[in-house]
């Protein structure tokens, strides 16, 4: 499982970072990006799903390994 942030959609609500700081980082303007290649370490899948479900801009998505 990987997470991805669409930089075009992200408006810096920083909800993903608050819910899953292990998975998301913020730049100097507060806009989010996935840490590293976005890979979700085992045990953090639920946090990844929460980050997706709480982004007001639908900027965060999960990319399954199969894709």
């Amino acid at each position: 499982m990987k997470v991805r942030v669409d930089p075009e959609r992200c408006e810096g609500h920083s909800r993903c970072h608050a819910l899953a700081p292990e998975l998301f980082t913020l730049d100097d303007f507060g806009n989010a990006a996935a840490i590293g290649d976005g890979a979700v370490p085992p045990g953090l899948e639920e946090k990844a799903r929460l980050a997706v479900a709480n982004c007001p801009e639908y900027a965060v998505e999960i990319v399954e390994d199969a894709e």
Partner: protein
Amino acid sequence: MSDSKPGPEASPELAPEACGEAETGACPVTGEAGGPPAVPSLERPPVTDWRTDWDHLDPRWRDNPFPIWDELRKGPIARTERFEGAWLPTRYADVKAIAYDTEHFTSRRIVLRHKKYEDPPLPAPPITSDPPEHKAHKQVLLPFFTPQEVGKLEPMARRICTGLIEEFIADGRCDAAQQYARHIPVRIIAYMLGVPVKDSDLFIRWIHEILEIGIVDDEIGKNATKAMRDYFRHHIALRKEGRTEAEPDGPEPDLIRVMMDGSLNGVPFEENHVLGTLNLLMIAGIDTTWSSIGAAIMHLGQHPDDRRRLIEEPDLMPTAIEELLRAYSPVTMAREIKKDVEMGGCPMKKGEMVLLSFPAANRDPAMFPDADRVVLDRQENRHGAFGLGIHRCVGSNLARMELRVAIEEWLKRIPDYRVVGDVTWSDGTVRGPRTLPVAFG
């Protein structure tokens, strides 16, 4: 109406002291007897039909807007001939579509008034900016409002909260809106701007005159805007002489300095831009969060089960804060239609206004199951309390921190309390409790 109104100096009912801190003769617990109302009501003709004649200044909206929005959501986007012609979307999808559509809707006017001010309106970048300038206008501010930066202000927020509680805890009762919530955001934004915290009551008065009285009274609104601009002019002039009245331990640079030094493509911001942004930071940073803190304390006072759960399960705080922001969203913004457009069969004409009710959107059951219930551990919560799209509130991280700290410190010292007496609400653009009598101990 504006002809007969006296100027702000002659309006004792507008003085902050009249808003509850001073002894008014009313029992502070029951709110009964004597004393002026905390916030004077705006006189408006009563609404005849919410679908075709809505008015967000009607006392029924102010006191309990939720049933009005629930009814309106069932039909097309509501219309009113008031405010020189305006529309009111209440469904999340419609509010979001308009917030995203910068082609047909401009942000140059973001407060719905009984009639429009001068043309073009005074700018308050970035909230009144449209693409493509908007991005640069916002980016100058964003680095000072990241979660990491506002985290540095958390100890100060905690000191303010504990200090305020100390002032009234022995009384066994207080007005949580006037004696607590009101003082927290204003002191922090004054500190960040680089102006004396002791001027806080002045800022609160100006905001009341701009966002409440001023939306139906041009003279009071304009005078307050001018007073605020003159205030910042003074503090800019001081800095040009190498002086400042900022708090001694204040941030370096403060936000006045940031704006003075701001530029776009190498060209320094014009004075109008600088003053507009500083006015905005003060206006946006105060009664919005005051409203959220008050509403959260009200809810937890009226819902002991939620309160106990939050105390017993502090890990719920992050979702609880978002849920309280959703259920009691304070901020409504407006847009001006810049190009004719049809939405859901409604012909929206250039020059008309749209009231963008994020609070109504956040109660839309199509988006939020059980929308009228506060669910402290709501798992999916894409609320738009801080706006949606490019105008996402610059201060959202600051507001969240202040709200969380205010609730944490309150519950630490006052875990058991109840709302006793009438809660009164502000008018217009920012909705929140302005009197909130509570008793404890």
